[in-house]
């Protein structure tokens, strides 16, 4: 046997792992772009609005570069085999988000209604906190399988997080949706964190129960019907989603959690029937609630006829909002190439222009081209997440990775679909780009976990157990 092993003779399941390049340098190169592009965008906004390069350009560039650099070094040290795309993509989105938030800070209109003005520095602070959490995850979570131990604690934690906004005195009703709590002057959206904790619970729970759920079923009309008692968990989750919808009047969060659960259930059991059940139940729940919950009902009406909603709001009829129509105008006015950063009028959206509706500013100022690029970046993050799930070697890791990426994809869909008038508007924010501490911090943690799983998945397998038949080859190996 020669020392030059021919890869084709190896079994294909091990070739991917053994000798896989760490790709850390690729990540570093991509990170440079992910920092430089937002810095250029930042200069662009300053030139367009004030005719000068913004004074904060250097500190902003250094700040973002420093954060990205530290994150990169930590990944290099603690997760050397991690997916090389996730960190740069998240950094790029976060950087562009900061630029657009700063751009909206310059709007006199938004300043006058206290919707913007100092949002960008705060968002930079949140970003730093998010990356800190990302680093903490990577340093302290050496192996994602540890999380499996906390399955039921996660369940309790998730429920507490979800119910917090309903606690009197703690919960805050902002523009009709009760998904915030306010602590010491800060508004926190516990739902963003619950998303991750719940994914851990689902992954741990389904890993244990998947055989029972998958095998103990009866066949009926081509579908595998689960046993009555196995239906229990899905019913409970469905019920909780409905509760969220009714009491927190938040269509998005409810849809997100239920969707995430159905995706994970389907992956765990490989039973298409769960998808059918999930779709039927969420449709029934959504229609049922939308028909009697006034806030949700209003959102649906605004979606069906945004122009009427706009007219009513202009006429001063209470409880109506011009936002949906304003967002559509912003997109339309952007056209193919957009008005250019800093040159649009998306501040006309007024409330939540830099959070829930930030995509409309991207749409107006960067145009169809910019939005397509942005959506593809989100698509890439999801794709890397799914790839991580595919590569993971343990079912818990697979379930957790697909749960997190699926939830991420659903969130992107629900938020952008809402802003673009494809589906009714929900009270969620675009991951990474929208203004909001909870969202940024939670999503950095999410990326941290995905990076941890991908590191475990791509790490070279420990040396195979010695095989007596292969003794000779072992010897000649250098």
């Amino acid at each position, binding site marked *: 046997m020669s020392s030059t092993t021919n890869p084709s003779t190896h079994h294909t399941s091990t070739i991917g792992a053994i000798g896989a390049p760490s790709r850390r340098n690729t990540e570093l190169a991509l990170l440079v772009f992910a920092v430089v592009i937002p810095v250029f965008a930042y200069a662009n906004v300053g030139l367009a609005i004030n005719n000068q390069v913004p004074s904060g350009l250097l500190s902003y560039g250094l700040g973002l570069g420093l954060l990205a650099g530290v994150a990169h070094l930590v990944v290099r040290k603690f997760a050397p085999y991690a997916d090389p795309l996730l960190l740069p993509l998240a950094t790029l989105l976060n950087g562009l988000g900061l630029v657009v938030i700063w751009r909206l800070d310059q709007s006199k209109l938004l300043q006058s209604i206290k919707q913007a003005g100092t949002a960008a520095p705060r968002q930079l602070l949140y970003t730093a906190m998010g990356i800190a959490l990302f680093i903490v995850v990577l340093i302290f979570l050496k192996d994602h399988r540890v999380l499996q131990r906390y399955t039921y604690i996660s369940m309790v934690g998730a429920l507490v997080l979800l119910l917090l906004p309903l606690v009197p005195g703690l919960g805050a009703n902002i523009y009709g949706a009760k998904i915030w709590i306010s602590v010491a002057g800060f508004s926190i959206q516990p739902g963003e964190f619950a998303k991750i904790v719940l994914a851990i619970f689902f992954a741990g729970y389904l890993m244990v129960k998947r055989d029972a759920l998958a095998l103990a079923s009866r066949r009926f009309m081509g579908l595998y019907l689960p046993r009555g008692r196995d239906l229990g968990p899905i019913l409970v989750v469905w019920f909780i989603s409905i509760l969220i919808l009714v009491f927190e009047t938040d269509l998005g969060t409810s849809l997100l959690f239920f969707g995430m659960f159905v*995706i994970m259930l*389907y992956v765990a059991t490989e039973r298409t029937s769960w998808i059918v059940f999930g779709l039927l139940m969420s449709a029934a729940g959504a229609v049922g609630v939308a028909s009697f919950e006034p806030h949700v009902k209003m959102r649906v009406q605004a979606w069906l006829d945004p122009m009427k909603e706009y007219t009513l709001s202009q006429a001063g009829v209470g409880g109506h909002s011009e936002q949906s129509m304003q967002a559509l*105008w912003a997109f339309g*006015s952007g056209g193919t190439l957009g008005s250019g950063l800093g040159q649009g*009028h998306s501040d006309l959206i007024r409330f939540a222009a830099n959070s829930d509706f930030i995509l409309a500013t991207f749409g107006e100022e960067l145009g169809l081209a910019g939005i397509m690029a942005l959506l593809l970046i989100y698509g890439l993050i999801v794709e890397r997440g799914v790839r991580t799930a*595919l590569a993971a070697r343990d079912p818990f890791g697979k379930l957790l990775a697909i749960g997190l990426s699926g939830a991420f994809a659903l969130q992107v869909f629900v938020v952008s679909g809402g802003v673009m008038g494809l589906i009714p508007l929900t009270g969620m924010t675009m991951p990474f780009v929208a203004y909001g501490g909870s969202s940024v911090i939670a999503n950095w943690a999410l990326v941290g976990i995905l990076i941890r799983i991908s590191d475990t998945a791509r790490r070279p397998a420990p040396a195979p157990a010695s095989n007596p038949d292969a003794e000779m080859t072992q010897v000649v190996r250098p």
Partner: protein
Amino acid sequence: MNKPLRRIAIFCGLLVLTLLIRDNWLQYVKADSLKNDDKNRRVTIARYSTPRGDIIVGGSPVTGSTETKSNGLNDLKYKRTYKDGPMWAPVTGYASQAFGANQLENIEDGILTGNDDRLFFRNTLDMITGKPKQGGNVVTTLNAAAQKAAYNGLKETGGKGAAVALDPSTGKILALASYPSYDPSSFAGASNTDAEAWKKLQKNANPADPMLNRALRETYPPGSTFKVVTAAAALENGLYKSADEATDSPLPYTLPDTHTELKNEGDIPCKNATMREALRVSCNTVFGKIGADLGKDKMLTEAKKFGFDAEQYTPVRTASSNFPEEMNRPSTALSSIGQFETAATPLQMAMVASAVANDGKLMKPYMVDMLQTPNLDPLEKTEPQELSRPLSAQNAQILQSMMETVVKDGTGKNAQIPNVTVGGKTGTAQHGVANSANPYAWFISYAKLPDGSSPVAVAVVVEDENANRDDISGGGLAAPIAKSVMEAVINSKK
């Protein structure tokens, strides 16, 4: 577990694809309609982002632009101003930051803001050279002196009314006045004072309805002035071949198929009168019978040739003047003397006078002579256009001699101008339930210079609420205004 994972991957891909398709729908397919939606604030912002181009009369602008006094929040940089706003409002319309734009300000908005596609190349060039975007100008056909005469004349009578003057040979609108009027400057901004001013001008707050453009958008019963159309129909259809042929006109005259007598105003010599005589003293019986003899179809055809039953685009859209399409014989008789449902805009009656003056050729009325680029290069020039030929040249000359008789020694003496031949027709149109409201005083006329050219045709209508009912007659109230407008045009020709 990998098979469902791959399916979930496809599902996520489909989610993103759906978003991409939706975005293409929004930002490509629907982009233009969203972008140019009137309610989209960006349209207003663009309209006022640069000084607006001007509307020009006789070489000097009647509009202007001033920088908005910014309270920091107003996103509209410039505000429209108007010189002699009330006088020119029926021409310019308004452009208000808060209340939109109408008439020329709206129709030529693309040129005035500089957003018109024809200015695209220039704008691109300006963008490269760093020059700010500028709006182009709208050069009107109006005559400042004539407009002033028309507006002041109406103002002096104090009643609601309108006056229109046309150049018969081209169709150029020379004067277009409406009274009471409004000052578009008063609500050009977006402040509370502007809102107050706007509110006060609305019809529900102000019964005089100053924002109504009476010259183009209001129709009045034309009364006896319509007899010119009836006379034209009689000549064109060969019912009578000359102005001095005795007509077959009994007195008293009973409306066909009824027992109702059609009355004349006072005891005037209408029995078998010639058309010249009938027009001079304004015989209802003679022209009522001519209309009934010709029948509704022939009358309708002639009225339509003069422009009735159609909207005109000057380019400001006018109301459609009405000559009823379906009616019985007595109604035809009444319609032929400008009553029943016959109704005409002042512009329409000016078109009637101008067609007669222009030897039977009706020119399409227009008020935009030329569109200019910001550096005053012509962008588009309006060419005179023939609309129709209601009369042969020979018949037109017969009708001219009849109308000249009216002014020379008939009801229109007040419009006489020394050394100028004036032809005209008075009208006093009754309206209201049982004719209870004050009648409208009408006068239509044209002036003919010694060289045979005819530089101006005018229509004036006045409703005088203050006047003694008996005093109102076209000759008394409206003819002097028409006279001063014609004089203004003739003097400016010299």
